[in-house]
């Protein structure tokens, strides 16, 4: 039974990639012929390219934001005991379990009341909100295993706190930081629901663009675009695998 599960897990992705190479006019599987015409069509489609650029920009900024907020918070949560520690930890990780539609509607109303709805800033805030939990969770997993005596050894060897951070702590945390970056990027890049609620017509993200198209009709351009998303995502996973090993992350 197990191989069926593995097949079932990757079947949608495989289908899309296969169908995207069709030479025919319609989306069917198995595809008719082999051609790159739909990739060319995707590349020359302004809405898709525009939304791709928006998605990349958004994901980069959200990742930077999430890393800054998340790295500091993860260190604080791991290394200090204080009242309210668990409350803050749960609050930080809550976007992982709060229904995305609920976050969407709540943020939309909040931003609207501040006249920030349908702005890039509002969308960015939403993306940071949903990526910070991944950053904090990934970093926390690594921090928990961090042998503090290594930092004490560095201090004992005459390194002041700033040097300890730069020469010892951060280099050792580097694989976790890379993981966190990739997770944040992938989460922001692929997000649909929140982006639908908070998005603007000028700045649509790629997944939202795909969603709008899918609702109406689908032709192979969509498959090509989706295939690009799949390949980007897969590439990022392989980056994690190389740097850290998929094990540690799961």
């Amino acid at each position: 039974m197990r191989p069926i599960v593995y097949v079932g897990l990757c079947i949608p992705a495989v289908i899309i990639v296969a169908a995207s190479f069709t030479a025919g006019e319609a989306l069917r599987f198995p595809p008719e012929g082999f051609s790159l015409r739909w990739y060319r069509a995707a590349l020359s489609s302004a809405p898709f390219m525009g939304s791709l650029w928006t998605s990349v920009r958004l994901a980069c900024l959200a990742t930077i934001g999430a890393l800054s907020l998340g790295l500091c918070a993860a260190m604080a949560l791991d290394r200090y005991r204080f009242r309210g520690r668990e409350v803050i930890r749960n609050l930080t990780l809550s976007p992982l379990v709060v229904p995305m539609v609920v976050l969407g509607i709540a943020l939309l109303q909040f931003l609207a009341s501040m006249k920030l709805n349908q702005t890039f800033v509002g969308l960015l805030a939403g993306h940071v909100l949903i990526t910070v939990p991944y950053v904090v969770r990934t970093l926390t997993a690594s921090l928990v295993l961090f042998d503090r005596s290594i930092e004490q050894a560095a201090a004992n060897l005459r390194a002041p706190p700033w040097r300890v951070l730069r020469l010892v702590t951060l280099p050792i945390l580097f694989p976790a930081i890379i993981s966190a970056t990739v997770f944040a990027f992938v989460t922001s890049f692929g997000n649909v629901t929140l982006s639908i609620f908070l998005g603007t017509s000028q700045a649509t993200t790629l997944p939202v663009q795909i969603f709008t198209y899918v609702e109406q009709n689908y032709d192979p351009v969509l498959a090509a675009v989706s295939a690009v998303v799949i390949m980007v995502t897969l590439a990022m996973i392989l980056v994690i695998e190389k740097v850290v090993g998929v094990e540690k992350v799961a």
Partner: protein
Amino acid sequence: MAAHASQVETAGARTRLLLLLSPLAAFLFAFLVLPMLGLLRTSFLPGERSFGATGFSFEQYVKFLGDGYYLGVLAETIGFGVAAAFVSLVLGFPVGYSLARLPPSKRRWRLIIVILPLTLSLVVVVFGWLVLLGRNGLVNSVLVGLGVFETPQRLLFNRVAVLVVLVQQFLPFMILSVMSVVTQISPALEQAAANLHANRFTTFRRVILPLAMPGILSGMTLVFILSASAFITPRLIGGSKVQMVGSLVFEQVTAILNWPFGSAMAFVLLVLTLVVTIGANAALARLFISRGISRAP
């Protein structure tokens, strides 16, 4: 030497802690706490518009919980959650277990296959299913080609399809949860059981299952919550035939523009997930105490 985490004893430490924590704390307050409070407030507004509205009323909740149709959708949503949780348990447990027992070299590629649906954009996954199950999709081509059916069948826009897609999306969470907990069950325990004349089934029932329960519970909770919250899947795969609370909320907010009602529905959904989470945590805590398991999966 010293403890891993330290009590905040000095003024210097307090400043450092504040500096590290306040950016995120402020951000969460502004973009999580306040919006949620706002949502709660809006759900208690009367009428159908929230801009400039005042007053306090239960009417939105009454409208939702008092109407057969909406209650039906809520029941279906819960039903989908429960069904997805159990199906993913049945499918996911063997996979998670085998992954835990495999040597690292064999594990790599399988894990990548498991993680891919997690990280891949939902809309792409759902689109893949649309292609798979559509009139010209793979399944229909195979069925017609094999002569099982004469014409392509309508496989989409029904409950089964929605369930299948939900399970495929969230199965990885179950697999990872099971894998994580089984990794902590030393193979020596299974060997000991065999040495004490337990067959495979008994070993599973009396050794593995109880010890894996925290992971099973976590996994099922997560799958339930994610499935019950779904919106893209029922909308695209279920069409107008299958409604879940998530898609109703979306409709209210974007099409019908009845924000108070939409907020109330959203809040009901939130309460549902909170109740399940808290219930699961309580059950997990009791499990840890009674089983003496020392680490959470």
